[in-house]
């Protein structure tokens, strides 16, 4: 029983991490038809910025308490700015040339980790974990690491926040309309490019938050982390139905749990393979994913 609870919470924690990456990815794909291969780079930027700030380089920030919250905020802001720079500097100029756009995004996705290892080395750096998050919490008799709870809570808050944003605000309405027909949105007098930038900024912020929380979860940060997480996020987005935030959330839970349980009850590593099998099965049974549209 203890093991089941722990495995479930770890799987959900991992799924929560995937969700922070995948939600932005699916919004960007849904609205702009851009598969953002540089999304992992945004995560790494957020993770390193948070690590850098928490290691005492940013006045006021630190590894504990309010200082750590400030460090996370710094990581999120940095990731957001990086995402806006990516959209304005790379994605937008190449909008009419999808192939070059993919190549440029892949290039950024490769260059950023290279840059990070150039500056801070390719080895993993220990991530400062606040005392409050390094302990365990007793849940149904099992001792569950507190960082899992934090991750799950953050992902739930993000899910609710995104649904409110998409469902209740004008900006969200524009995004949902743009997913179906961008040209018609501009023919109604709305600058759809502002929605592009908004969605990229949001995706960057969430990825950076994922980077910071991923640092807490793994206890370390390395230049390749973003890229390896991105692969699972892509699986999640495809399984969830490409442009559905709710679908992505459901797929994150499925992928995270499947991976943990399969890794535990079979040979380690088989869980990662099981995720790919899940992807294949979903694509065969429901080619459009679990959910078809942006909800």
């Amino acid at each position, binding site marked *: 029983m203890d093991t089941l609870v722990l495995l479930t919470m770890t799987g959900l924690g991992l799924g929560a991490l995937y969700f922070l990456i995948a939600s932005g990815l699916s919004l960007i794909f849904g609205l702009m038809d851009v598969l953002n291969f540089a999304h992992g780079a945004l995560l790494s930027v957020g993770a390193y910025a948070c690590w850098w700030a928490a290691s005492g380089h940013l006045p006021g920030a630190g590894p504990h308490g309010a200082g750590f919250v400030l460090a996370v905020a710094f990581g999120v802001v940095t990731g957001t700015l990086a995402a806006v720079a990516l959209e304005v500097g790379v994605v937008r100029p190449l909008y009419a040339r999808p192939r070059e756009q993919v190549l440029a995004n892949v290039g950024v996705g490769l260059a950023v980790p290279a840059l990070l290892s150039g500056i801070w080395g390719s080895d993993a750096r220990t991530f400062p974990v606040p005392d409050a998050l390094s302990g365990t919490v007793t849940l149904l008799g099992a001792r569950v690491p507190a960082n899992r709870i934090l991750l799950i809570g953050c992902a739930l808050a993000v899910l609710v926040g995104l649904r409110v944003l998409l469902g209740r605000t004008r900006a969200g309405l524009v995004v949902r309309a743009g997913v179906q027909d961008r040209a018609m*949105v*501009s023919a109604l007098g709305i600058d759809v490019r502002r929605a592009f930038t908004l969605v990229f900024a949001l995706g960057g912020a969430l990825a950076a938050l994922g980077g910071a929380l991923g640092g807490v979860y793994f206890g370390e940060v390395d230049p390749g982390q973003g890229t390896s997480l991105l692969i699972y996020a892509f699986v999640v987005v495809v399984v969830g139905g490409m442009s559905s935030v709710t679908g992505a959330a459901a797929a994150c839970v499925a992928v995270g749990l499947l991976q943990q349980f399969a890794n535990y009850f079979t040979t380690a590593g088989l869980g990662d393979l099981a995720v790919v099998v899940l992807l294949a099965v979903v694509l065969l049974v429901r080619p459009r994913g679990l959910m078809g549209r942006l909800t």
Partner: protein
Amino acid sequence: MNAAGNAHPRPLLAARDLRVRIGGRHILHDVHLDVAPHGVTALLGRNGAGKTTTVRAILGLVPRTGSILLDGQDVSGLRTHVLVRRGIGYAPEDRGVFTALTVAENLRLAERPGSRPPDYALVHDLFPELRQRAGQPAGTLSGGQQQMVAIARTLLADNRLVIVDEPTKGLAPKIVTEVAEALERAARAVPVLMVEQNLAVVRRLATTCAVLVDGRTAYAGEAAPLLADPRATRRLLGVASGSTRGGQDPPGARASAAESPDTREAQS
């Protein structure tokens, strides 16, 4: 109807030397189009003549050369949403309704925050159904209801020009009448550029018209004389005037306006 077509006031919208090339093919050669500052201007032509492309070119939805003047101002360089915000409402040929959104959400997108409040009174007066169906996903509406959403979106904001592309296409005669009536009422307040193949509707609404043949303007002027001349309409539109829809009806059905159910409904 409106007598403004007699004088020669400055056109509300003027397209000059409009050319469009898509994939190396010339679709529009040099289209000239004047939209009268009052009433309905009809844009006519056979299937594939370039009517929809002309409208899309005016709005900047396809790459084009030539100039577009709105109220005498050159607006050729403006991006679509900026031009539209100068006061243009657009209901495209396929209606452009967001099927996954509700009726109310579709309408809300046509609101222009920062300018005068949206005129829901007018819209609900013209299309009472839309109020009852506010929460329904637009994709589950009938074709006629979707057309009402599309037209309603053009009337909500404070527009100085409304462009509708084949508003009666594919609709049952009764709905054609409803849509025509709504446009007629709307046109009293705002000038309308209407692409239309149903000549009964054109006759009822339009004061001015332009005819495209193979991507060129072949006629521009008052609508009535053209529609009264069966030889001219046959030459330019491929139908004798009085027919309802080019190329679809058997020859017998084209003979007279009075025999067509569409026409009778539309004129009643």
